């Protein structure tokens, strides 16, 4: 559509600094990209007037020689679970109909303070519960990647709209959130970079809660450097979130040195799951070889409790969700379905307001927390979590980072894997363990499936080791040199 939509954040930043173009010009071409790509359904709400207003303010700041921060004038998209002052926030749920927050989430405020320009609020799985962006009340998002078989692919989820927007050159970056893989899996399905920082790096204040001990915000971008720039703007201590870390935030971009000689990279044998496809295995071995050629030392490591991570997650996450989502009662905001009694009003509002997957998970959570079952399920799962964390801590005594595939397969067609919830849950088999342990992780596009759809490689490191991740991921990105564009971008109409 325009050369300006093909820029990375780093390139756009340089262009703005050197006055090659203004933020208004840059934002304007992105607004046209948003309008031209409405068929992807990547946005729940477009904030195009607001974007122009913020772009003008950015240009004014720059003209006065006082740019705001590291992302001044950069157009981005924001997942629709960050509360945005005066802008509809739905978490893609019917139950949040008409909800206009009178406040701004810390992460989106940080992005505003850094000068970025919000183009709109991106579509997602309802309350971030899903791996295909098909549970949204606002309809499925289409992956800009497809092959010539007439089937639209899912963008992954839950940050599916964010991933699709970045992949289709609609926005230069997007804010997402990851509970069990919700940034990394869609990034992998859409051929972009997705980063989940250490639990506590980004404030959860003002983020619509799903599972509070797992939820963590992070960036989706087209390059590793861009992820470092964007995380820099998002991260930081916040006294409004009691789990927000006071750990100092380093200069993430400075960690990209191109130098990984002597670093030890763990290859966990337990991630070679039953029935792993040869294309995923091939991609993984290729990644190992590349890092080895760059001077890193690959080492086999063992994470013995890996196979228990998914079932553990599907106790912890629904339990916390059932508690968090108790707030949607039809009294204070969002949808209300009137009824005779208070209890009936709660039940009808929640019955109509929540979609099928959300209802199922809330009920699952209510069951595992109910009297007599708490120890058997929730406490058991929290014990497993201790063991999973210990697996990682032991491994990180020997290695600096761990390399795995991001997903067990490439993007599937919309409507597939819907019959059995457990089949859908398998999507997150490689991303859930690091979520349970609160560890930072990143996915980098690393190749194409036999069908021609993108696949990602996934790096995990120890708590607050984001610098190692950015450094290794950047080296991997350069070696892979993934430059294929989604089919959507070569469409004649564009």
């Amino acid at each position: 559509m325009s050369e300006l939509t093909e820029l990375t954040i780093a390139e756009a930043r340089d262009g703005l600094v050197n006055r090659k173009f203004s933020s208004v010009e840059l934002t304007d071409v992105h607004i046209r990209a948003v309008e031209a790509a409405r068929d992807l359904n990547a946005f729940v709400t477009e904030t195009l007037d607001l974007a122009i207003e913020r772009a003008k303010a950015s240009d004014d700041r720059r003209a006065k020689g006082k740019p705001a921060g590291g992302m001044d004038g950069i157009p981005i998209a924001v997942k629709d679970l960050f509360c945005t002052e005066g802008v509809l926030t739905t978490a893609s749920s019917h139950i949040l109909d008409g909800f206009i927050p009178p406040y701004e989430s810390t992460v989106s405020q940080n992005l505003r303070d850094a000068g970025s320009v919000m183009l709109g609020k991106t579509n997602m799985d309802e309350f971030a519960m899903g791996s295909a962006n098909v549970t949204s009340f606002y309809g499925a998002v289409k992956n800009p990647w497809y092959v010539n078989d007439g089937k639209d692919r899912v963008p992954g989820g839950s940050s599916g709209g964010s991933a699709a927007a970045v992949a289709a050159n609609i926005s230069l970056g997007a804010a997402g959130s990851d509970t069990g893989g919700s940034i990394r899996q869609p990034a992998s399905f859409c051929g972009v970079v997705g980063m989940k920082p250490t639990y506590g790096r980004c404030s959860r204040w003002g983020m619509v809660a799903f599972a509070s001990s797992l939820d963590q915000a992070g960036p989706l971008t087209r390059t590793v450097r861009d992820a470092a720039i964007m995380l820099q703007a998002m991260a930081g201590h916040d006294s409004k979130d009691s789990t927000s870390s006071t750990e100092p935030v380093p200069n993430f971009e400075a960690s990209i040195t191109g130098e990984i000689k002597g670093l030890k990279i763990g290859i966990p044998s337990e991630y070679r799951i039953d029935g792993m496809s040869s294309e995923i295995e091939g991609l993984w071995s290729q990644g190992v070889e590349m890092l080895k050629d760059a001077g890193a030392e690959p080492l086999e490591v063992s994470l013995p409790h890996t196979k228990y991570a998914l079932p553990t997650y599907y106790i912890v996450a629904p339990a916390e969700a059932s508690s968090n989502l108790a707030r949607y009662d039809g009294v204070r905001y969002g949808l209300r379905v009137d009824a005779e009694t208070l209890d009936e009003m709660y039940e009808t509002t929640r019955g109509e307001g929540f979609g099928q997957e959300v209802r199922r998970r809330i009920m699952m959570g209510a069951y595992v927390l109910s009297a007599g079952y708490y120890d058997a399920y929730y406490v058991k799962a929290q014990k497993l979590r201790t063991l999973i964390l210990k697996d990682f801590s032991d491994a990180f005594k020997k290695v600096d980072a761990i390399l795995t595939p991001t997903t067990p397969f490439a993007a599937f067609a919309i409507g597939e894997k819907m019959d059995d919830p457990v089949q859908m849950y398998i999507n997150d088999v490689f991303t859930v363990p690091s979520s349970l342990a609160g560890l930072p992780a990143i996915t980098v596009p690393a190749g194409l499936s036999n069908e021609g759809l993108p696949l990602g490689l996934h790096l995990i490191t120890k708590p607050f080791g984001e610098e190692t991740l950015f450094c290794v991921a950047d080296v991997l990105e350069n070696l892979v040199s993934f430059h294929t564009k989604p089919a959507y971008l070569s469409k004649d109409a564009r």
Partner: protein
Amino acid sequence: MALDEATVRKIAKLARIKVPENEVPTLAEELSKIIEWIEQLNEVDTENVTPMTSMAEMVMPKRADKVTDGNYPDRVLSNAPNPEGPFYTVPKVIE
């Protein structure tokens, strides 16, 4: 353990979610499958394992017990369905 239909109705009630009667059998089947799948955790001996309570070893931060926010009922009520004056409204709960 399989979840029977009575249990599904009970947890729907606990979760305050109205579930149409014709969806109860499907839900019982789906939830049973998930429960069966998560019960593989029973093969792990966790006798002497401490349940994880926090990601990082950190002490819960505390602040002074002072009012730091408030006094804008209009903003608080701005999203309320059918508010009346400075109040939320609910169906009558006292006979």
